[in-house]
């Protein structure tokens, strides 16, 4: 006896209906059954089991808190000397190596107007501005392209806007360097340690094969200090909360005309230049 198509489909349909509505279906949809995942121990409970004394992890009470960190660079106050002081402070506090040639690592550096603001090219602009050396760093964009392209989430955006690097996760693919329109990222083509003038013991170095950039001194904010460049620049660089209308940074932005780098790209950089 053969099974014709009609019979086969009927049989298949009935068994499928029975299967779905059967014991398994009811068990799966029983209230609370799918919530089991929520009752799993949290990572902390697994890492710090009770018998070893439940430990607590919390932020440093002295930390600086902001809703959205940003930086203002006052080009009237920024002199070559204060720019150098800021750069040297940053390089020291973050163990940034100085490698001769194209493989240098840059967190913060100076560049001429024409390179910093290429879209506002104007042959008759104020020569004071045109010939000035602007201090540039990671813009900690609101919409950071580097974060979007990172395949391992090694670079990510914190709630307070800082675009951070987790060096432990970086695989050195350099997508972020291709994504960043500001050239703020550098790749460690070689072991940076021999090129560090003086090691700062409180901050790690990097290793060969990872990308690095400015982190808005997240490690200093966490202990209640201002970023190293802002501290060393003698008032030319002001760090603050962009979201706080009463902050010194917002007052400066209200009073003076400010420009940002390549705003038409839609990255919304958070480093403002008062010109």
């Amino acid at each position, binding site marked *: 006896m053969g099974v014709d198509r009609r019979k086969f489909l009927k049989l298949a349909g009935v068994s499928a209906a029975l299967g779905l509505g059967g014991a398994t279906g009811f068990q799966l949809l029983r209230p609370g059954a799918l919530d089991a995942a929520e009752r799993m121990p949290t*990572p*902390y409970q697994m*890492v*710090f089991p009770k018998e*070893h*004394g*439940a*430990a*607590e*992890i*919390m*932020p*440093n*009470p002295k*930390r600086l808190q902001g809703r959205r960190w940003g930086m203002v660079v006052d080009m009237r106050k920024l002199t070559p000397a204060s720019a150098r002081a800021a750069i040297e402070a940053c390089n020291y506090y973050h163990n940034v190596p100085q490698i001769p040639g194209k493989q240098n690592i840059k967190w913060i550096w100076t560049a001429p107007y024409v390179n910093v603001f290429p879209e506002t090219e104007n042959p008759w602009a104020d020569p004071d501005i045109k010939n000035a050396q602007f201090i540039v760093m990671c813009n900690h964009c609101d919409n950071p392209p580097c974060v979007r392209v990172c395949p391992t989430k090694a670079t*990510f955006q*914190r709630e307070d806007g800082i675009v*951070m690097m*987790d*060096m*432990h996760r970086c695989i050195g693919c350099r997508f972020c360097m291709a994504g960043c329109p500001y050239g703020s990222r550098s790749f460690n083509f070689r072991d940076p340690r021999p090129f560090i003038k003086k*090691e700062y*013991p*409180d901050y*790690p*170095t*990097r*290793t060969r094969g990872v990308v690095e950039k400015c982190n808005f001194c*997240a490690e200093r904010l*966490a*202990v209640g200090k201002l970023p190293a460049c802002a501290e060393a620049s003698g008032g030319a660089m002001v760090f603050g909360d962009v979201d706080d209308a009463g902050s010194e940074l917002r007052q400066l932005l209200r009073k003076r005309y400010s420009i940002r780098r390549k705003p038409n790209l839609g990255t919304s950089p958070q480093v403002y230049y008062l010109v």
Partner: protein
Amino acid sequence: MYDKGKIITGLVIFLAIFTYPLWSNMGKAAPVPKPELPPKSVATQCIADTQYMRTSHMTLLNTWRDDVVRMADRVYVSASGKSYNMSLTNTCLECHSDKVKFCDQCHNYLAVAPFCWDCHLVPKPKEKK
């Protein structure tokens, strides 16, 4: 059996070479590592009990890493209520100041090579006064 002599000689030589690591190391068991604890004047207790630190310090350090980098939580309160700054170089190695006499003891014994030190600095051993 053809070439009996050659085959048996070959087998004996093969076995001798194959088992070389076994019999050459016989009676030469590596000594059990004895990591040197910091003197009592520096610290009398670690951030968690010894058994936990011995088996799970790497898990703890991984959690610290994620908390510090991702969550910006940098203070660890131990079961005894003491607060610590979560830092490998500045907290762990503050007490365990000699990496060679502490970390490397077990790591070398177990032939593990954690790459922490590629980036994290090892403080120079303090000179004894």
